[in-house]
C-alpha cells in the first residue's frame, strides 16, 4: 500500500499515558470493497480454487436481486449448510441491497438496473461448508439486460462474454411474471432457448458446462389464482429446453425461486438453497491434480531414495 500524503503530522505531546495526535497526517488506502472488475477478481482466482457463477436473463428477470438476496440471507444466518466466512466486496453488496432497505425511504423493495456501462461486476463470497468442512471462494456476476438482448439478437457481440466460458455454472433466469401472461410467455421460452443456442454456437457453453435454469419471481405464479397455467407452461419450457440442450451440456437443472418476496411472505432466496451448494462444490472443470505420485517424484533423486529407504527401515 502506498501512503498518500495529505497533511503532515503535528501536535504530538510528550508523555507516557495518553498522547493526542492529529489524525490527518498521511493516509493509507484500504481495499475498495466494491464489486470487483475481472482483473481484480483474477487475484482471488489465482490464490485459491474459485467458483464463478454467471447469471443471465432478460431485463428485470431478477439477476441482481438474486445476488443481493443471497448476501442478505447470510446476514440472517447460515444458509444451505453454508456459513459466511468473509467477502472483499461488502461495500458492493451493501450498495446493491440498499433499495430493498427501509433506509432508502421506498415503500416497495427495488433494484437498480445493471447496465453495460458499469462493466463486469463480480461479487465475492468466501463460504464455509459446515457439512464438508471446506472453505470455498465464490464469485457471482450478472450479465446486463442489454448484453442479454445483444447476444440474443446479434451473434457478433459475444466478445465481452468470455466470463461465461470461465463460469463453473451458467444460471439462466426466466421471469416467472412473464409465464403468467399469455402474450409474453412464448417470448420468455423463445429467448431462453435462443440464448442457450447462441452461447453454445459461440463455444461459450459446451459439453463441460453446468447450466441451471431458474424460474424467478415464483411467488407471482404461486399467488396467482390462475397460476396453474403458468406452472404447466413452466413444465413445457423445462421439457423443451431438456430436449434441445439436455445432451449438449454436462448438466441442465431447473428450479423455482423467490429471491425476494416484497411482503416478506417467503424467506429470502427461497429455492436457492437447492442450487447454492452445487454452485459451491461442482466445478465446471475438475480441479488440477498432480500428475506424479509424490513417491515417484521424490525417487528421482539419489538422496531422496536414500532417505525413503532409511524410513522404510
Amino acid at each position, binding site marked *: 500500500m502506498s501512503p498518500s500524503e495529505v497533511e503532515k503530522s503535528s501536535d504530538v505531546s510528550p508523555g507516557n499515558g495518553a498522547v493526542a495526535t492529529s489524525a490527518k497526517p498521511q493516509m493509507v488506502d*484500504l481495499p475498495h470493497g466494491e464489486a470487483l472488475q475481472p482483473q481484480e477478481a483474477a487475484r482471488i482466482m489465482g490464490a485459491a480454487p474459485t467458483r464463478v457463477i454467471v447469471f443471465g436473463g432478460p431485463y428485470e428477470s431478477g439477476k441482481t436481486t438474486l445476488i443481493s438476496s443471497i448476501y442478505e440471507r447470510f446476514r440472517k444466518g447460515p444458509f444451505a449448510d453454508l456459513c459466511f466466512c*468473509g467477502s472483499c466486496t461488502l461495500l458492493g453488496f451493501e450498495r446493491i441491497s440498499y433499495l430493498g432497505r427501509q433506509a432508502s425511504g421506498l*415503500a*416497495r423493495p427495488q433494484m437498480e438496473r445493471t447496465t453495460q456501462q458499469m462493466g463486469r461486476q463480480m461479487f465475492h463470497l468466501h463460504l464455509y461448508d459446515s457439512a464438508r468442512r471446506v472453505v470455498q471462494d465464490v464469485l457471482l456476476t450478472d450479465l446486463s439486460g442489454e448484453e442479454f438482448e445483444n447476444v440474443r439478437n446479434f451473434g457478433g457481440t459475444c466478445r465481452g462474454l468470455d466470463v461465461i466460458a470461465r463460469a463453473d455454472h451458467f444460471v439462466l433466469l426466466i421471469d416467472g411474471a412473464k409465464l403468467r401472461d399469455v402474450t409474453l410467455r412464448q417470448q420468455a421460452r423463445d429467448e431462453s432457448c435462443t440464448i442457450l443456442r447462441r452461447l453454445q454456437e459461440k463455444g461459450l457453453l459446451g459439453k463441460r458446462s453446468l447450466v441451471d435454469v431458474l424460474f424467478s419471481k415464483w411467488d407471482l405464479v404461486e399467488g396467482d389464482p390462475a397460476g396453474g397455467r403458468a406452472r404447466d407452461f413452466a413444465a413445457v419450457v423445462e421439457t423443451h429446453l431438456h430436449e434441445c440442450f439436455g445432451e449438449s451440456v454436462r448438466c441442465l437443472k431447473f428450479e423455482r425461486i423467490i429471491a425476494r418476496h416484497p411482503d416478506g411472505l417467503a424467506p429470502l432466496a427461497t429455492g436457492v438453497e437447492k442450487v447454492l451448494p452445487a454452485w459451491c462444490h461442482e466445478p465446471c472443470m475438475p480441479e488440477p491434480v498432480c500428475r506424479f505420485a509424490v513417491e515417484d517424484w521424490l525417487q528421482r533423486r539419489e538422496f531422496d531414495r536414500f532417505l525413503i529407504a532409511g524410513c522404510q527401515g
Partner: protein
Amino acid sequence: MPTPAKCHLLVGLPSAGKTTFLAAFWYVVKNATSHDALRIQVLPDDQGYLNGICDVWMKGKPQQRTPSGHVHQVSMRLVDPATNLAADIVFPDLSGEMFGQQWAHRQWAAEYDALARTAAGMMLFIHPQYIEDACNIADIARGVNILTDGAKSPCASGVPAQDLQRATPWDPLRAPTQVVLIDLVQFMVGEPCWLPKMKVCVVVSAWDLVERQGKPPGQWLKAEMALLYQYLTTNIRTIEYCVFGVSAQGGDLGNEETRKLLLDEAEPAKRIRVFNGTGERSDITMPIRWLQA
C-alpha cells in the same frame, strides 16, 4: 522483566462504549481494586486524558464523544498478580467516527496503520442500543402483516414501483454495524495488514440492557449479529475470538434511581459487571487478560 509492548486496538463505531471501558479499566488498574485484576506498575507521566475520562466515569456520567481526528494513544505497564509478570500495553483510542470513515472512505491514517500492523489483539465494541440493523422493507411488511393478522396484506407488493430518484441516497455510514465491523477485522487479517493470527475480543457494552434476555454473550452475538458470528467462528485459522458482556457503569445512568444506587456504592469498581460464558465477575481486566494470554 516486562515482555515487549503489545498493542491492542479498541475498535467500535460511535457510542460503542470504548472510552467508558477505558475509563473504568484505568480506575481498576490504577487502584488495584481486586486481588486478581491487572494493576499498573508505574504511573505514566502524562495521565491527563485517562484521569479526565476516569473522573467522568466516577461521577456516573456518560462520556463525551471522543473528538474525531484525534488518536489518544494510551500506553501502560501492567502487572498480572497471578504470575507477577509485567507487560507493556498500548491502546490507541480513536473516535467511532474514524472507524466509520475507514469503512466508508477506505482509508486510514498512516499512524494508525503502523499500530494496526503490529497489533496483537483487537477489542471489538458493540453497544446493543446503537446497532444499525438496516431492516429490509420486506421484513417490515411481514412484521406489519403479522401484527395486523394479515388485515393489511399485501403491504409492499401492492405499492407500485417508485421513481428511484426519490429514494434517499445511499450512505455507506448507514450500513449494518456487523458488516462494518467485519470489514474492520478483514483489514487486519487480510489486506492491508495480513496479520497471520489475531485475537478478537468482542465486548458487548452496556450488558445490563440485554442481560434480561438470559443469553450468554456469545449466544446474544449469534442471535443479534449472525453475519459477524459466522465470520468469527469460521475463520479459525486466523481469528481466535471470545465474547464478553461488560457493564462498565453497572446500570442505566439515564434512570435517576439506578444512578443514585450506583453512586451510593463506596467502591466504584464494584459497579462494574463483566460476563462471559462462565458467569459474572466485577473484574474489567478480564478481556485484556484474555487478549494477553
